[in-house]
């Protein structure tokens, strides 16, 4: 059954992919093909989802963890790699989240993409993505995990560039791919390091043997380094790329070029959380290295605050949510960094629901506004699309961490755990996290107010066509909204509360020296209330600035022009990378092309040889004069040379 969960989406992808190649001929035939592709892919995903729920029940609730080996994949010397499924609570949770969100996004896409010309291709990509994501989360060895990791990267690339006739979409797709390569390189080195250290890439022996290698030292470039620290940091670089952490985050906002359901599924709910999953999966390794954990915490917390500040000034509705995602991923990482992996995964799950909800809601708004994404051209929509409006409220409340929505529970426990870690980096994470929580609430309500309230700023023809989305788009939103409402208090006890030990059932390892999560429950009352308070404060600030005094934002921006520009330009990361990497790469490439390849290799090589050949050919022709005495002379010269060769040699 777990095998079917993974393989059904692949089957759907193959069928829909094949359908994408059929030339329909007529419009009616095209409609039929589109319908078929939608039915196959959605059907596969829904069955997969039901099976995943059943599996979740047996694995996570009833504790039947198992490892299924399907096939031997690579067998070479010491290296043994199998195709296998590792089913424990962690993978069961991930499977549940992935299949549920994915199924909702599939159904939503039927409505959202209905006038797109290449529906089968889109559905095939979505299914393919889901397949790779499931391979990733169920992998029982690092290589298979890497396969899924690259596979989701590929699907992400294909889907960001889905509208391949837009240059910006292609650029974004390439950017996403390249930035991820940087991370993937670290990940690969990490896998190699693991193999060097453990002699295997199978997860079970690695996780079991981590403690033995707690003090192993690795010789690197003449120096010595703590092996697990090196490996964990390398692996974390991979996670940073995939999960868009500060430094390697630049691709995520650009990835919004893809269709909105893609943003919801891949760039909010599932793929970008692969990094958190990986860190949690390898928690026994990370636990052995305090340095690596500190790095994870600092990077996570910095991302949380950085992305939140940028999110406050963006005007594109999807980009705001994208930065929000980036920021929330930072929360999850610093939860892991303070050894509160359960809290990180908990937030991963609740975030999947409410962020998918927000994205799909934003998609609904965009759909209503005839593909307009700029919030400055929206406003006053709440009467026209009330259902979407209500759903966006739910999503925002959850994101801002207001009781009793899901985000309240998960974000609260993360901040408490950071406080409870009682370390310097823990405090760093806690305070930045609180600040980010304020900003989160602020930009959420800024989004709500700019989009739905105030005077309508759109053009007349656009406004005339504003309409509520069809049921096929709203039903998935209701499902996700339910998740955003209830996932928090349902999951709290299991994920991070007093049942968590039984729930995780060994899927996550926390050393006794890292008691952040236990202490979290005993943290002072003000710590418990702080997130909620700053959340409310953020909402209030947004109300003041965007509802009561709409001219205030402009005045603030004018008062601090440098800060404003710094934040508006996303802390100049893109410009920095352009200056350091992109432009020098172009310069080097151009000089190698023009100078190295063109002048030297072509000049001396193909072109030069060709020219020389023609020259020699001409010379030889001229020698061939047609006169007998020339020919006889050549023969005599020939024999003279040959004879003198021997005569001179023998002297």
């Amino acid at each position, binding site marked *: 059954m777990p095998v079917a969960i993974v393989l059904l989406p692949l089957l759907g992808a193959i069928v829909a992919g094949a359908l994408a190649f059929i030339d329909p001929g007529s419009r009616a035939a095209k409609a039929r093909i589109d319908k078929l592709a939608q039915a196959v892919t959605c059907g596969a995903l829904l069955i997969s989802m039901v099976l995943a729920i059943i599996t979740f029940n047996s694995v996570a609730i009833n504790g039947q963890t198992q490892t299924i080996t399907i096939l031997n994949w690579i067998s070479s010397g010491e290296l043994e790699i199998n195709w296998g499924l590792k089913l424990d609570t962690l993978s069961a949770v991930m499977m549940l989240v992935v299949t549920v969100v994915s199924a909702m996004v599939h159904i939503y896409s039927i409505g959202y993409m209905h006038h797109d010309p290449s529906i089968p291709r889109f559905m095939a990509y979505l299914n393919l993505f889901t397949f790779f994501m499931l391979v990733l989360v169920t992998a029982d060895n690092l290589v298979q995990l890497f396969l899924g990791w690259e596979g989701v990267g590929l699907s992400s690339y294909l889907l960001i560039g889905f509208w391949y006739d837009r240059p910006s979409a292609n650029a974004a797709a390439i950017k996403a791919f390249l930035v991820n390569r940087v991370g993937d390189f670290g990940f690969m080195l990490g896998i190699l390091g693991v193999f060097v250290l453990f002699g295997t890439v199978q997860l079970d022996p690695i996780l079991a043997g981590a403690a033995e290698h707690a003090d192993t030292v690795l010789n690197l470039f003449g120096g010595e380094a703590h092996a697990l620290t090196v490996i964990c940091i390398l692996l974390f670089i991979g996670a940073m790329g995939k999960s868009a952490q500060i430094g390697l985050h630049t691709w995520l906002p650009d990835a919004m070029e893809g269709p909105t359901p893609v943003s919801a599924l891949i760039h909010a709910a599932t793929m970008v959380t692969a990094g958190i999953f990986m860190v949690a999966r390898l928690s026994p390794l990370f636990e052995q290295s305090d340095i690596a954990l500190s790095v994870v915490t600092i990077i996570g917390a910095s991302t949380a605050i950085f992305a939140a500040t940028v999110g406050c000034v963006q005007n594109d509705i999807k980009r705001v949510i994208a930065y929000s995602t980036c920021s929330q991923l930072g929360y999850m990482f610093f939860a892991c960094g303070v050894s509160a992996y359960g809290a990180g995964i908990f937030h991963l799950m609740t975030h999947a629901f409410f962020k998918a909800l927000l994205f799909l809601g934003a998609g609904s708004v965009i759909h209503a506004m005839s593909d307009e994404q700029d919030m400055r051209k929206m406003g006053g929509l709440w009467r026209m699309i009330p259902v979407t409006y209500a759903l966006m409220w739910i999503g925002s409340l959850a994101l801002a961490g207001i009781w009793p929505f899901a985000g309240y529970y998960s974000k609260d426990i993360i901040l408490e755990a950071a406080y409870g870690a009682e370390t310097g980096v823990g405090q760093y994470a806690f305070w930045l996290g609180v600040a980010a929580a304020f900003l989160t609430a602020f930009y959420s309500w800024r989004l709500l107010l700019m989009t739905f309230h105030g005077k309508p700023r759109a053009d007349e023809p656009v406004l005339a066509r504003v309409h509520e989305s069809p049921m096929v788009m709203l039903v998935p939103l209701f499902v996700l909204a339910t998740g955003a409402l209830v996932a928090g208090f349902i999951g709290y006890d299991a994920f991070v509360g007093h049942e968590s030990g039984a729930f995780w059932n060994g899927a996550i390892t926390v050393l006794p020296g890292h008691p952040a999560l236990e202490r979290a429950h005993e943290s002072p009352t003000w710590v418990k209330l702080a997130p909620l308070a700053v959340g409310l404060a953020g909402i209030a600030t947004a109300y003041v600035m965007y509802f009561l005094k709409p001219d205030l934002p402009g005045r603030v921006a004018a008062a601090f022009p440098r800060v404003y520009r710094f934040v508006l330009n996303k802390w100049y990361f893109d410009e920095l990378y352009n200056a350091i990497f992109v432009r020098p790469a172009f310069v080097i490439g151009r000089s190698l092309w023009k100078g190295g390849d063109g002048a030297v290799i072509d000049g001396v090589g193909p072109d030069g040889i060709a020219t020389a050949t*023609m020259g020699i050919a001409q010379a030889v*022709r001229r020698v061939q004069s047609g006169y007998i005495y020339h*020919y006889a002379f050549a*023969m005599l010269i*020939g024999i003279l040379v040959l004879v003198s060769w021997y005569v001179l040699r023998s002297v």
Partner: protein
Amino acid sequence: MPTAEFPNLFPALPEIFLLVAAMALLMFGVFRKDDEAGPARVRCSRIVARLCILALLCALILVVTMNGSDRVTTFNGMFVVDRFAVYFKVLILISSALSILIAQDYLEVHRVARFEFPVLVVLASVGMMLMVSANDLMALYLGLEMQSLSLYIIASFQRDDQRSVEAGLKYFVLSALASGMLLYGSSLIYGFTGTTSFDAMAGALAAAPGEAVSLGALIGIVFILAGLAFKISAVPFHMWTPDVYEGAPTPVTAFFAVAPKLAAIALLLRVMMEPFGALTVQWQQVIVFISVASMALGAYAAIGQSNIKRLMAYSSIGHVGYALIGLAVGNEAGVRGVLIYMAIYLFMNIGAFTCILSMRRRGQMVVGINDLAGVSKSNPMLALALAIFMFSLAGIPPLAGFFGKLYIFLAAVQAGYFTLAIIGVLTSVVGAFYYIRIVKVMYFDEAEEVLDRRMDRPTALVMAATGILIAIFFIIPDPLLSQAQAAAQSLFGG
């Protein structure tokens, strides 16, 4: 005083038969009623041509059936028959027969269809067979001259055509010079070894391994080599080739390009391996030089050509260069490579010339490469056949030409002659340019005026047969490989 024993004629039976047949056909032609350029003369030439082909085939059967696997000598050791000789005689007879077959139509079109042509080809073939079987410097020279005398005449066979006469004359004068060199070399060798017999010579040269090889003998070898290099048109004795190929009537060129080369290569192999085998290290350097120079010149000079016959001349120079790699290697594998190469070369060249013979526009022969433009549309079969031959000549797998080169290069690499093999491969690349250019002209250039579709039946048949042989050689290479192996072994006394 012992009387001279009557020599055993039996091993030379094919040659004797062919000679008698040639005389008889000559008589037949001479005494037949002649009407000076009328239909009777054409009819006569046709009959003689067919009978000549028949005679060649009979000789072929004789050669094959009389062949014991042993080495037999006769005429006081001047004439030798072994597997090596049989191999080359078969190839020579095939190429002569094919040449007569494809020549007839051309000769008739150009109003030079005379019965002497096939008879001369047969006589040349007898000379070549004698060359192949020569086991003495005297026999060598006799065979060579017999062959050459016939060739001088057929080169200028189109005697109203200035270019044809010029070709014959050039060939005659330069060939005489080459023969002079050969004779001078022979006398030097005789002077230093005291014998003209190959067997005795080998003994004399191998007898004193400790002593330094006498310089006189070496120079003699160089002169003999020069004379033979002229016959196979190896650089720097190649200069006659393009002019003669261009000027001579096309079927004569086809004959020139194949049969005399086979005979001369055979002779060269035998002379270098048998009597001079002990001096391999010495003559190797000359062969390497000639081989490299021929490959390079063949590759580069052909590029500038616009006449396809001249192009084939340079092509043949290049191919001789490749074949000489096998000789330069100087071992059994190398000789085997040469044998395979020459057999494949025969069919590629005859095939390519059938295509050239079919290039006609309004009944007239054309030989410009650009005249081939658009042939792929006007005459697709011709285009396909010529493309196969060109790709094969260029050595593109899986065609036969590739395997010819493969065995040569393989032998060179196995014996450690990497430089030779690398130069060979590089010049093949250059050579591929002009072969494939022809294919490009045929398939991608637009024609101003297309070629005739007409092809006479024998030519078309030969074209089809050689084309198929070249194309499917890789499926059934074994007969050729095993024969070549046996022939090479016999040369090394195995």
